[in-house]
């Protein structure tokens, strides 16, 4: 039973965070599941990452001239250091939903600020978050609302607000898109001053009343001289919105749903779960935290162990946290943050406002190869503290038969569940060198490292 508690805790931490070491899992399992969920839902009770620590070693990345070739390094530093696992996971969630691409912005600091907004507001009220998003300079520039004028409507933000950020396709008309866009005229960014030797000037939200179309609008059956906030209020009264966000939460935290564009025509895999989440969302007046509480305490969540393919960000951060030793913002952190991109998820630069196609669509022969190569290179490094700790735990058990070596390694990397055939393959591989003794500790450590490499190459390791 104790091992079952540990396995459930490992599941919770993989989903609500980026995994946890065995020491942490044991502590949390002793604390209990419900108490751990409450801690995750109350990030203010534990310590977050220190952005100033990152900036102290990379001062040139404080408001740099433009994209500094450092990828998502500041964010990666947060993901590797924060104790607020769920808060940071929600940042990734919102980045995947409100997908904004740095390549168009060419303004690194504004991308980082948007991600910081998700950290600040991502577990609060969804309506408030949408209002902040509508005023977020990175989003305004990304979806061209700065070019949405009273006398020249630009529909980009207005359309995506409805299609991708709230209700989903099929719940509004082309007229609604136009009227919604009219209501957001004048929501722009203060004119940016050209860059100078000290870098780019910040962008700020600015409401230009003279550029706002103050005429009457008819939006989703309501008529009035609507401004942007009125539109968001109406959007948040639509049952479609609660269902859309519920489905996103389910797809991100529980199990695979079909790709987002299919949602208007394909029903959810677990309609009762979506109903429950959507109803909780509505009942709590669109508060994210109570909805997450219901999700993590539900049986459908607890039973969804290994029902999802890890996203590249989860592979990257999960592997780095597992092997340890990457908390310090060393010079390589920029390149490290780009690894997720090589696996198909370039952080801070999604391919489009639709974000990434998730689930099995993360996997193709190229990205699978990247995942395997990345994880195998890490766990094969027996000098890393996380791997050293696995080796030490094994060593306390004395000599290990091939079966014991395999089962212990599977346990310490998860606990992982693997097909019987594959376990047998691992055992066969271990048998080639026989019983593992610690007479030569260095050689034994290498054998363990090789076994870990083989395990992270397994298909089963790609599941969260």
């Amino acid at each position, binding site marked *: 039973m104790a091992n079952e508690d540990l396995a459930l805790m490992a599941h919770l931490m993989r989903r609500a965070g980026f995994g946890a070491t065995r020491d942490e899992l044991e502590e949390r399992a002793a604390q209990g599941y419900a108490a751990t969920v409450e801690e995750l839902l109350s990030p203010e009770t534990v310590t977050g990452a220190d952005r100033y620590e990152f900036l102290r070693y990379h001062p040139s990345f404080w408001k740099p001239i433009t994209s500094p070739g450092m990828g998502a390094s500041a964010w990666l530093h947060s993901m590797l250091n924060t104790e607020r696992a769920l808060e940071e996971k929600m940042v990734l969630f919102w980045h995947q939903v409100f997908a904004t691409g740095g390549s168009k912005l060419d303004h690194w600091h504004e991308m980082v600020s948007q991600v910081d907004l998700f950290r600040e507001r991502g577990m609060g009220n969804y309506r408030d978050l949408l209002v902040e998003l509508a005023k977020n300079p990175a989003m305004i520039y990304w979806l061209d609302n700065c070019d949405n004028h009273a006398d*020249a409507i630009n529909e980009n933000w207005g359309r995506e607000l409805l299609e991708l950020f709230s209700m989903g396709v099929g719940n509004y008309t082309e007229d609604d898109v136009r009227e919604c866009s009219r209501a957001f005229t004048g929501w722009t960014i203060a004119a940016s001053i050209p860059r100078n030797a000290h870098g780019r000037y910040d962008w700020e939200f600015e409401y230009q009343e003279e550029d706002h179309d103050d005429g009457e609008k008819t939006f989703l059956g309501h008529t009035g001289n609507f401004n942007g906030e009125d539109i968001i209020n109406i959007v948040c009264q639509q049952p479609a919105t609660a269902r859309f966000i519920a489905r996103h939460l389910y797809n991100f935290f529980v199990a695979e749903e079909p790709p987002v564009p299919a949602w208007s025509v394909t029903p959810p895999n677990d309609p009762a779960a979506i109903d429950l989440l959507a109803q909780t969302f509505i009942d709590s007046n669109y508060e994210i935290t109570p909805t997450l509480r219901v999700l993590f305490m539900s049986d459908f969540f607890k039973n969804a162990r290994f029902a999802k393919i890890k996203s590249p960000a989860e592979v990257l951060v999960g592997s780095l946290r597992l092997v340890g030793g990457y908390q310090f913002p060393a010079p390589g952190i920029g390149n490290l943050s780009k690894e997720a991109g090589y696996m198909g998820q370039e952080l801070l630069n999604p391919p489009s406002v639709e974000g990434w196609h998730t689930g099995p669509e993360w996997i*193709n022969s190229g990205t699978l190869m990247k995942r395997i190569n990345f994880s195998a290179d890490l766990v094969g490094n027996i000098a890393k503290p996380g791997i050293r700790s696995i080796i030490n735990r094994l060593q306390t058990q004395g000599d290990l038969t091939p079966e014991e070596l395999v089962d212990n390694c599977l346990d310490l990397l998860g606990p992982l569940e693997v097909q019987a055939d594959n376990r047998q393959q691992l055992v066969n591989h271990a048998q080639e060198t026989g019983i593992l003794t610690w007479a030569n500790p260095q050689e034994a450590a290498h054998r363990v490292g090789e076994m870990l*490499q083989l395990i992270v190459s397994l298909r089963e390791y790609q599941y969260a």
Partner: protein
Amino acid sequence: MTSNKKDPVLVVLQLSGGNDYMNTVIPYTDPLYRDNRPAVGIADEDIIRINSELGFHPSMRVMQELFDQGNLAVIHGVGYPDSPRSHFRSMDIWHTCEPDKLGTEGWLGLATREIDPRKENVVTTVSMGPSMFRAVSVAGVPVAAVDSLDSYGLLTGISNEDQRLKILDRFTQMYTPAIGSGQVMEYLGETGLEAMKGADILKVAPGMYSSTVEYADTPIARKLKDIARIHLADLGTRIFYCDYGSFDSHANQPGMHASLWSDVSAAVGDFFSDLKEHHAADNVIMLLFSEFGRRVRDNGSGTDHGAAGAAFVIGDPVQGGFYGEYPSRKAEDLQQGDLVPNLDFRGFYATVLEDWLGLDAKPIVKGEFEKPKFL
């Protein structure tokens, strides 16, 4: 069709984001062009005039040369009825040929299955880029997804080659799909095995390549160079897929559109020069398309999502020229301010499938459509 014995090869270059048709193939004598494009219109003197009515964007000098050589076909007015004007939905429709319901099978994935039904060559189709395009993906059809040809390989971090080979041997056994392990596990298993096999085949290509052509240092040039290297290694690849963009020019269109097209033109020009230098161009055609064109009237700095677009087909076997009719720009002929498609893209696909790849197009494009005869 050419009469050579080499298998026909198709390269698709997807212009992602919605390329602005009217500023790519410019109806420069139409006063409505000037009226509708006060902010993003191309100055008369800069337009590359192709005939008495139409011109190319100034960044498309290489395209003009290909056109003058009779090797570039411009297909007017491609699209499909009731465009949703959503990038993602529209791209899905182009990829799956399913405008009315959600398709899951890519048209070139299906073509791959027809070309190589017994999966004898896992590099029959190569998708360039970090993620695989839906156009080439069909469950159970192997497609190699290559981000960068030079660093392609499995467990390359294990430096001891004997140990690596031993591990790869285990890997093969552990990825052999067990019956009943579930759809996703089976998919992962097949993908892993294909990855390994594909890497073994493709790793020979860089070493065999030499050329006097120097490609530019742009993402599209790097992709087309990788395609050239694989094609020249003669590994049996029949379909290549790559993309460039984003062409989503809602704002600041003039500079952005110009730089995108100068990258594309240079890369395409270098690609064909490279193939010609190696006498390997006569069995290759390249197809360029975008998910939709853009709105007729500009929005003061760019153009919003539209409907009809232009497609291009390039190559020695292509009969250059204009195909179809440029849709009317008259206000009364537009739908929601957009050019109305007058050629279903599935007909344009059918020409490629039937008259180039020699396949039956009907089951792939789901029906019969008017075929422009550019081959």
